[in-house]
């Protein structure tokens, strides 16, 4: 267990997220079928498969660049493979996390919290959603907040990530009763209430994967599983 975010940790995280998306692909699509257009699972799966492919294909040179560069590559890959609403939004998340992370080889918990906050602001800038609009923001914003609070209290990376995932889970669950005001689900009006938001669900998977894998210290060139 490391207490900093490294390329190795990032790679393990992204692989864990990809695996979780692949596993829950049908569930994500079912959630989207209920209030959207039944593609969120396949969109995210396509994108994360591309990301994993990219990670495996990084040359040692590229693999050696900073955390920020890696995050930006992930963001660009998502932007150009996911499409739909999730593509630009998750793309912005990673692109803006990458910008904030800068060129360092590893990040402290506080730096990581700053990067995640920047990423979530990026999602909001792109999608204009507020808390309570029944979108991924409902999972991402509380998660970023919990992470920053944990960092301020000096918690370890592992503990901070656990709290982050818990906050994301709360936020995700809280989307169920909401009436959607952004995204495709908003076309449903009142009928959108009673369903959990698919994007908030994938965002929880993202934070859950971080709690599981981001503090690990697997080398960045671990063979694809």
């Amino acid at each position, binding site marked *: 267990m490391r207490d900093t975010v490294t390329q190795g940790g990032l790679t393990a995280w992204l692989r864990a997220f990809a695996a979780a998306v692949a596993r829950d692909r049908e569930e994500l699509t079912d959630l989207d079928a209920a209030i959207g257009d039944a593609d969120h699972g396949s969109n995210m799966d396509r994108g994360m498969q591309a990301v994993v492919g990219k990670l495996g294909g990084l040359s040692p040179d590229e693999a050696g660049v900073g955390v920020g560069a890696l995050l930006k590559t992930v963001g660009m890959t998502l932007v150009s493979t996911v499409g739909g609403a999730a593509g630009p939004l998750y793309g912005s998340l990673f692109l803006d996390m990458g910008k904030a992370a800068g060129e360092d080889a590893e990040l402290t918990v506080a730096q990581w919290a700053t990067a995640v906050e920047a990423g979530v602001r990026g999602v909001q800038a792109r999608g204009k959603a507020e808390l309570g609009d029944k979108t991924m923001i409902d999972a991402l914003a509380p998660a970023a907040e919990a992470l920053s609070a944990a960092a301020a209290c000096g918690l370890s990376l592992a503990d901070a990530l656990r709290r982050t995932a818990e906050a994301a889970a709360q936020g995700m669950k809280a989307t169920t009763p909401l009436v959607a005001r952004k995204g495709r689900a*908003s076309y449903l009006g009142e009928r959108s209430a009673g369903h959990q938001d698919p994007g908030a669900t994938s965002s929880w998977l993202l934070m859950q994967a971080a709690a599981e894998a981001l503090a690990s210290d697997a080398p960045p060139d671990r063979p694809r599983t």
Partner: protein
Amino acid sequence: MKKLINQPEDAVKEELEGVAAAHGDRLRVHTAPNYIVRADAPVHGKVALVSGGGSGHEPMHGGFVGLGMLDAACPGEVFTSPTPDQVLEAAKAVNGGAGVLLIVKNYSGDVMNFEMAAELAEDEGIEVEQVVIDDDVAVKDSLYTAGRRGVGATVLAEKICGAAAEQRWPLPDVAGLCRKVNANARSMGVALTSCTVPTAGKPTFELADDEIELGIGIHGEPGRERRKLAPAHAIVETLATAVVKDLPFGRGDEVLAFVNGMGGTPLMELYVVYNELHTLLEGWGIAIGRNLIGSYMTSLDMAGCSITLLRLDDELTAFWDAPVNTTGLRWGV
């Protein structure tokens, strides 16, 4: 799920290969990223029209690429808007020096992806305008939602603006014309059955044997209301009333009436629908000056239809009548 496809993930790719094989004389299909351009692109000095959206709505948009309509179409995955790099590359491929108009349907995903593409294109020095189509009256427009969806008016806007571009109208004017079409058009749809997204493998929603979904979106998004199955005249009256009241269209208006099939509904039923629509509008003093009847903007295999009305004036009528030569719409050439 029963479809004439191979692996669900490959459906869009193989469809595009089919388009390339079939229409190599008039279209060029580019892959990675995916886009379709007219064979003679870029047309020097002409505003280039680029549209796109998720696949599954064929012939929209790829079937509307050609003289008098689109210069390029960017097909995304099924029901998933294209990515910014698709739109950027398409814009670069068709830019004839007079700028590019992006015609975007109002869905969060489409709007964001085209927005990113526009930013990238502008960075590369291409003059870009975007027009967002939002003609679906089934969705309440409000500051607190994503607004109305873009549906049937898209087809009409692409045709009409394509004609203006052929006449070498400058970019701001073509964009203005596009906004005018959008401002004068309203639509609403109904589903008798759900569609089935290939990668999902099962219907997006379940409708009982005696139920219909009013105000359906073209992505199988549930509509605003589920009702008992009704005769065509009652369904058409519901749709037409909502459409007419919204603009509103009024006595003395002349309209283009577009009865669109959703993919699983045969032409026979669309003519029955048109017949009801014609009778209703006649009763309301609204004259049908032009019409379009067929499956032009589909939702995979969904059974159902949508009705779009566009208020015509001489300008719109002339552009509608102008020559068009695409695989999906063709006349005058």
